[in-house]
């Protein structure tokens, strides 16, 4: 039973948050339920589908495999934060252009993972892009358009930086 609680302080999308949470509350449930950041989705709750992916201190993690209390002191970024900062604006635009989403349920997690690939700003083959995205399930698109959108964004960024 949930007798244990803990007060945690963390930074979420650039804002400091202090909350009392049940020790057993998962990070993604905390983000969704306590902070209303419902862009992170629960697709399997056992770490496979990737729909709950968020960024923790710069790394992509599964929000369903971490407890909120483990994020005490950390900095979290969700799809809402990545959107607000403009970091993935070009990627989002290419998702639209290429029809790289259908039902949209996997999309936030897919963007978070793709953003990590794009941050490296190193050339990647389509196979490497597929490998990088292989921890995020999409049931609708068959991935082809997603790979296209990520590849296009990467190419555009590399062209811009060269």
């Amino acid at each position, binding site marked *: 039973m949930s007798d244990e609680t803990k007060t945690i302080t963390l930074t979420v999308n650039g804002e400091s948050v202090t909350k009392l949470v049940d020790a*057993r509350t998962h990070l993604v449930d905390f983000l969704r339920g306590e902070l209303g950041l419902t862009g992170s989705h629960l697709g399997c709750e056992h770490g496979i589908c990737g729909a709950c992916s968020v960024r923790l201190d710069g790394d992509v993690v599964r929000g369903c495999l971490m407890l909120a209390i483990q994020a005490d002191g950390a900095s979290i970024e969700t799809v809402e934060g990545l959107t607000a900062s403009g970091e993935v604006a070009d990627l989002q635009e290419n998702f639209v252009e290429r029809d790289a989403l259908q039902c949209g349920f996997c999309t936030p997690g897919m963007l978070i993972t793709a953003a990590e690939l794009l941050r490296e700003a190193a050339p990647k083959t389509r196979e490497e892009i597929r490998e990088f995205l292989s921890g995020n399930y999409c049931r609708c698109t068959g991935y082809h358009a997603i790979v296209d959108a990520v590849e296009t964004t990467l190419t555009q960024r590399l062209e811009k930086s060269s």
Partner: protein
Amino acid sequence: MANSEDKGFGVGAALPRKEDKRLLRGKGMYVADVDIPGTLDVAFLRSAHAHGRLGGIEIPEGMEDRVYTAADLTRVNPVRVEPSVPGFKPADHHPLATDKVRFAGECIAACLGANRAEAEDLADALIADIEELPALHDPVAAREDPPALLHEEWGDNVYVQLDISGGDIDSVRDAPIVVTRDYRMNRQSIAPLEPRAVLAHWDARAEELVVYLSTQIPHLMRTGLSQMLNLPSHQLRIIAPDVGGGFGGKARLMPEEIVVCAIALDTGKPVRWLEDRREHLMAAPQAREHIYRVTAYADSDGIIQGIDAELTVNAGAYALWHSGPFMETGMAARNLTGPYHIENMRCRTWTVATNKPPLGVYRGVARPGACFAIERTIDAVARAVGRDPLDVRMANMVPAEQMPYEAVGGMKFDNGDYPESVRRAAEMVGYDDIRAQQGGTAVDGRVWGVGLSSYTEQTAHGAAEWTRRGSPIIPGYESATARINPDGTLVLLVGIHSHGQGMETTLAQVAHEELSIHPDAITVKFGDTAISPFGFGTFASRSMVMSGGAVSNACIVLREKLAAIAAHHLQCTTEQVRFADGEAQSDGGSIPIAELARIAHLRQDGLPDGVDPTLDATATYEPDESTGVFSYATHAAVVAVDPHSGAVELVDYAVVEDCGNVVNPMIVDGQIVGGVAQGIGTALYEESVYDTNGQPLSTTFADYLLPGATEIPDIKIGHMVTPATFTRFGLKGMGEGGAIAPPAAIGNALSDAFAAIGAEFNETPYTPRRVLDALERAPKA
């Protein structure tokens, strides 16, 4: 149609999707995102046994108020599905088990908590007394030699036995070539990425139960829930917000949904249930599990004269509202002769009850199995007569000049050039080059094969087809309200739903085609029974044709009214008015639709005599012929197989399809690729495995394998366009087709790779173990 020269936004334009913006920013609103203060979460106590008699349920002291069992659901009617199919045996399906449990995962009790964790704690503390009975897992054994009866009053385990035939199969028994094969397409999950979800609360002001539901069919769900809850429809409002994929898996009324609504009515509090993945994999509707024995009679050129088949479908423990499982066998049997000119067919079918979750409808419904059976058989016949499967396939096909053509199973193919799709698909994967290479040893130590598979996809079928099937409801039409606001913007209210299909965009394109209003000034609303006229929902590849037709009809009514107002102001006849660029135009001048809308709503003094104010029209649409329009395609798969590990790589995959005229080619391509990916899942990865006690062994995504980005190759697509002759704009539906052919195409490619030793691949999914087994069993291994 509007006289617009501008096709940039209308039918045929690759318009970017209107729905993408919110979904890309984490602002989609799925049921789990709906925040109603004070909501209680439900967790279900589910049966741990596949089959048993349910005795008492032990509830911890003091917790009784937080637990609902069947005895507490006094207002709820059991689900009882009774299609108009001779001999179909109905059975009561109680949303919470009463005297028996019939599959592992069946709901026994609902537990309430302030959050899901507390509800689960309580469910874990409950003890159900279950006396185990022998479990039925194999449908053939369940009908031939059952160790137990699921629904005792039936006297057997067969929902329905049907024979479907045409021509005279006995007339071809002495054909020179007789090929018999057994095929098995195993059971699988549907697995939309958003699990099922329902939140219900009583709205005291409106005096209605508001039900947020992840469903493809909001209006039908209201009809079903109204029956089960004894609650009249005007006190029931279904809101299906963003839905994270359906694929058929959210097109049936499920026990959990009824229970949550009943508890919300009983408590007066908001109550929700959010399915977790384990529950989805063990208790959501499942699909496939077809077992065939097919005998083909052919001449020495491989021209098939008749097909004699037996089909057993494992429909699981219960019949789901609204239709039950009967369509699966009937559709499979009637599609069993594929796109081929085969004059004699007989198919004996059994729809069998076992201790597995109920069969639902999954993308392709029945046809992936039928396609698998006939397409593997075509290849087997080709091998038997020593010809290339490509040639035998084309030689048996209904040629374009024979269209329209009524197949022996009763399908009325409308038009198209089926053999041409084979030729083009083969060309796209370099069929001849692969054949040339197959003579030598593959450089990478793997064995390569190429396979083809063709199918037709009956879509947008209306009353005639659904009546013929014996469906309890006849989803033969769709409806739409088109409403122009005082400022000239347009709202479309439709009864279908969109959960990936892009209908917010394509229906706006249809309205633009009729009225020339810019898509940015059009909103498409659906998924709320309080705002749209009654409609059936999104399934059976029907929404673009049916709802598109309804939107078109409603917009035409508005256009005529706008023309009358415009003619009055432009001093011309209504016939002289044309619509383009958001304006009504005549040779003498123009007037913006926004101005006409202002007049219609705010300045009645500007209306001509006999024209009523407002611009608001509701219309329905059913295609002129209701037997359906048939999309078709040929898929070509190239595999490379490691004969030592059994690993299969899809090296190349091509689709050549014809779905008539296209509203949005970008969205059509997306549907094709997505469907193919699901078909590849069926072919190579996805299987809901059960042990002999009926225990589910695939209850996480670690055991139940969905294809990821590394499992699906880039998909090549080739289009042919044969406009439908009896639908608006010449459209055909196409949402399901991609999922139909991959199991057959890949099975044919595998069999092709190992043709030299006669290995055959007749059971899906083709896991490494099954591949190795097939190689071991090969006649010339």
